[in-house]
């Protein structure tokens, strides 16, 4: 019994790390730029489609496909920030949200136009196929790969934000935008880089997910809502919180599927509502 629980937690852990990749970018954009970006899920979707095309259709090397996907989605992110998001930092919440929602509509239909409306199953790279025996049960190598990727991203993010000049500028402008500007930080330029970075994180999530998930036009809107749950649980704009939030949601979902297969989606929204009601600033909020 204990083994079964442990094994199920391991399954949940890989789901957690997958969700973490998605939630990290959303959290950074909210924490620094102050915008809750509904379209973050669409960038995730674009990353998945780009990798699917480069790797699954054109047969490029897996890693090169991912790299090219990150670069192209990063460039889309640059355009989004430079021409659109930059103009909405100071306006009311409803308008901010609906602008980002407008991009969901555009990207969803654009994807349908280019790739068609049907769900597609991309191929799995051969080195990720197969299982490893853990606790006498077969555990997919791919899941281990995702867990490693998630942990690597977490460490890289921590190093970037805590140890580099860029990270210091980000933290400074996240806590006081005017003061940061006064001491000579180029805020608009910095925000563009932050947004590009977040877009690439979203694309990475989408790209790494392609070997096991279907690629379909609706995945953006389905995933973004999971990312919202995570960021709310951890505290809006709080990276450490997002990591823990992703762990909670991933593991809860994997047990939910096992124990209450009908209500697993319901449960994570209950958790989200409870956190909002009791501690709206999130588990790790100030």
């Amino acid at each position, binding site marked *: 019994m204990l083994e079964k629980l442990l094994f199920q937690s391991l399954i949940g852990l890989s789901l957690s790390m997958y969700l973490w990749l998605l939630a990290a970018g959303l959290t950074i954009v909210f924490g620094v730029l102050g915008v809750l970006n509904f379209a973050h899920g669409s960038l995730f979707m674009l990353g998945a489609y780009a990798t699917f095309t480069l790797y699954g259709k054109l047969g490029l090397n897996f890693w090169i496909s991912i790299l090219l996907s990150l670069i192209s989605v990063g460039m889309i992110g640059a355009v989004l920030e430079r021409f659109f998001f930059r103009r909405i930092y100071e306006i009311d919440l409803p308008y901010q949200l609906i602008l980002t929602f407008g*991009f969901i509509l*555009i990207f969803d239909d654009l994807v349908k136009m280019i790739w068609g409306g049907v769900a597609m199953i991309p191929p799995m790279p051969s080195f990720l196929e197969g299982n490893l025996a853990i606790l006498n049960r077969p555990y997919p190598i791919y899941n281990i790969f995702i867990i490693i990727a998630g942990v690597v991203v977490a460490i890289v993010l921590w190093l970037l934000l805590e140890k580099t000049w860029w990270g210091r500028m980000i933290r400074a402008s996240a806590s006081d935008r005017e003061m940061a500007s006064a001491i000579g930080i180029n805020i608009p330029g910095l925000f563009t880089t932050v947004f590009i970075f977040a877009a690439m994180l979203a694309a990475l999530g989408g790209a790494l997910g392609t070997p096991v998930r279907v690629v379909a036009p609706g995945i953006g*809107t389905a995933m973004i809502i999971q990312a919202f749950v995570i960021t709310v649980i951890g505290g809006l704009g709080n990276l450490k919180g997002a990591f823990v939030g992703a762990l909670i949601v991933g593991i809860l979902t994997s047990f939910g599927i096992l124990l209450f297969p009908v209500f697993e*989606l319901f449960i994570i929204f209950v958790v989200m509502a409870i956190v*909002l009601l009791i501690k709206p600033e999130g588990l790790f909020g100030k």
Partner: protein
Amino acid sequence: MKLKTILLIALLLLLILLPSFGGKYLLYMAIHILILSVFALGFNLLLGYTGLLSFGQAGFFAVGAYTSAKILLVIPSLLLGTVVGTLAGGISALILGYLCIRHTRIYFSMLTLSFGMMIYSLAWKWREVTGGDDGLVGIPRAPLEIPGIFSINMNPMENYYYFVLVVSVIAIFFIYRMVNSPFGLTLKGIRDSENRVAFAGVSIRTYRLLSFVIAGLYAGLAGSFLPPLENTVTPPIAHWTHSAEPVMVTLLGGIHTFSGPIIGSILFYIIKDLIVRFTQYWLIIFGSIVILLVLVFRGGVVVFFSENILPRFIKK
């Protein structure tokens, strides 16, 4: 006569005469416009008048739709389905609203989003009650009747159109009276300066809750119009992307004008209908319009029209 009154009378005449020259498709569109108008007007009582952005209205819409569908499947009475569907929307809004109004701004939006998605996941997964992802099918367009007094067959599209039109106009009139009453003024006061209204001895929470419940009633009413029209209800009507619809049309028409949500709903379907003639990917264009709206004319179409276009004609 004021221009506003003339426009209003013209619009009403057009709506009343619509079945005499419009085909089935036009009536079907008009019903959808009325549904979205009622839905968005309730939503805007929260956003425009109370200052609360709900991202879970689709949940109450779905409660209304599923309730009315369930009733119509058992007791074929249009009146019963509509009334109980509306009440179900209101009651669920009362229960969830009691929790939601503890917060404002983004936390309120996130709370309503989470409750809306709970309703969605029930609609999607609770197969025994909601039919799961197949939804409920074979819902009759039951006759409008009070046993022993009268009975009107609703099968012809124009009869059902008139039913939706009459009920919608009454609902719109009610909410119009409401926002121009002391109740509406108090809501606006809360929106603009919470503390001052609280100092005047008004219970902020009670007013916010009332506003939430009314929005829920309107969402429920709009939802209960749907099953007899389509003969089916499916989970996507509860999804958060459907909650974005009243947000979009309200912002499109104008958040601080009473007619904003109605004008926005009309424009939404007209734009859709026009673009779909050229391409099935109409959301690319509509999304661009939404983005343009936020970046260029944030007051909404009604304000843009009355401030920029109308004065040019009046000066002459």
